[in-house]
């Protein structure tokens, strides 16, 4: 039994679009981390269940994953700046 039969085509396209939307939402600093993880979960599920079938949302799926990655960088940079500011303020009283 092939794993490609696990995901219906409508579900595959819906998840691809959701990955794209979640990718944009992941640009919100700090809170966006959760959205990025959800986008990656959708990306992984579609990749595992896509098989050879044509996916109308393939470009959106890729864009969603890339946007989520940029969102993670934004969150990491913001988190680092905030942490360093807190450490600096603790060190200087």
């Amino acid at each position, binding site marked *: 039994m*092939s*794993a*490609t039969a696990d995901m219906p085509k409508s579900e595959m396209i819906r998840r691809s679009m959701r990955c794209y939307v979640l990718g944009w939402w992941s640009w919100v600093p700090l809170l966006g981390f959760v959205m990025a993880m959800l986008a990656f979960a959708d*990306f992984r599920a579609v990749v*595992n269940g896509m098989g*050879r079938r044509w996916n109308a949302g393939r470009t959106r799926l890729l864009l969603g994953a890339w946007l989520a*990655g940029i969102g993670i960088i934004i969150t990491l940079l913001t988190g680092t700046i905030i942490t360093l500011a807190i450490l600096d303020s603790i060190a200087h009283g």
Partner: protein
Amino acid sequence: MNALPIVRRELLVLSRRRWFYWLRSGVGCAIALVSCIVFAVTWNVATKQGLGAPLFYTVTFMSYLVSVLAGPVLLSDCIAEEKVAGTLGLLFLTNTRSHDIVGGKFIALAMPAIHCLLAAIPIMGIAFALGGVTGEEFLRSTAALLNTLFFSLAGTIFCSALASSGRQAFGFSLVLVLGCCGGMTAILLTWPKAAFTSFWLPRMLASPGLAFWNAPDAVYSANPSAFANAIGISHGLGWALLAGAMLRLPFCWRDQPREANSEASYEKCARATKQRMTDPLTWLARRRLGGTMAAWILAGASVLVIGGFYLATGQGRIDGMAVVFAAYALHGVFKVWVAWVSSRAFGTERDSGALELLLVTPLGETAIWRAWLNGLRQRFLIPALALVAFDLLLAWNAAANAAGGFGEVSIFFLTMLAALIFLMDCYTLTWTGLWSGLVARNATRACVRTLMFTLIIPGAFFLNAAIAASVTGMLTPGSLIVFALSWFIVSFLLDLILGALAMVRLSHDCREAVVNRS
């Protein structure tokens, strides 16, 4: 003597290949571009008398890395694959001898590496013309680089004659070349007064690296005979390895009978059969990819070297940056290995026709690439995590013992970033390697394609910038953090883009890629 017709034929084939032309042009352009960046960064910091020194040392170091890795990447397949395909015996049926085969393969396959090095030497000449480097130093460095390349190629062809498969040959040659040109040299330079350095064997094995180390004027003037000795010994060692390959070749092409009578081999067969019955694809993938022992040995060796450097730093023998560069180099070796194994994974199956047979079964391509991915994960994940855990432990210890300021926060933070990128690189390399192995013409091209955008381009750019900044004294704690952060962001984005593309392509276009390729 049939070596010359063989060489002539191989050179004619090589000269008609389009990629060979682009390789020469590409390497020359890349080195020129990197040199422009280095020169732009350092021209206002270096003195007028020493304007060319940062550029010279950067290009020389890059060329040294290329010379060291050229052998395993280019020549590891040359004899081992003939053995696997069974064509080596056919060659001996003709009027060829072992020295014809070894000489022909050596000269023909070494040409791309020699041309890459020749593309770098004029840039080094420009640095010499700019000032800060003497003519003798330029000649010594060139001689050391050519000698290192010869040793790397000769060592690899010897390993290829010893090994039973291309993968094994690559592993053997990587250990030999990196051990002689990097590890052994670093140990001898770190502990010059240790008891084992008085033996001739470690000094002989470390001679290629020692020749390169003794080439600059500052080191050469202290002990002029050390350079000549190292060059002479390593050159002799290279010829000895070539002679060893020639002597070994007539005895290595026959098929050996398999011993299957012992109790242990019976149990091994029974275990393999049991696994084959439960999950045949995973069994096949694990069989092709090999066990985890070699990955553990590499991770263990890396831990020993990094730990040794760290202890030497604690005793004030070497600078702290040496630990960072050693860790970076060893992690790089681990990543190159991951890329090599993953890009060869599908290539072997495709060439033998096993992949086509698997695709006509009802298993589906998703199950196939997932099994290979699981095999790679089982082989590399735990050793990579262990290596990262050791790095973090060391960084934690360094941060705890630092005298404050920069040391307390930055060391652990930077190590954490590096560890994250190391794991992400390995994960991306497994996906991109599998995809490249499926679409590339041969394993070497697949490996180069996999490594080019993930490791070579960002690594060369940031390593050069770091070396140039370190030579000119611009590598301060503040600039180091900026370097590390920009390197992290670029590597992360590249991993993300390439990894996601490979995942989508592999999951969707796997069957088309196999059909178009075959």
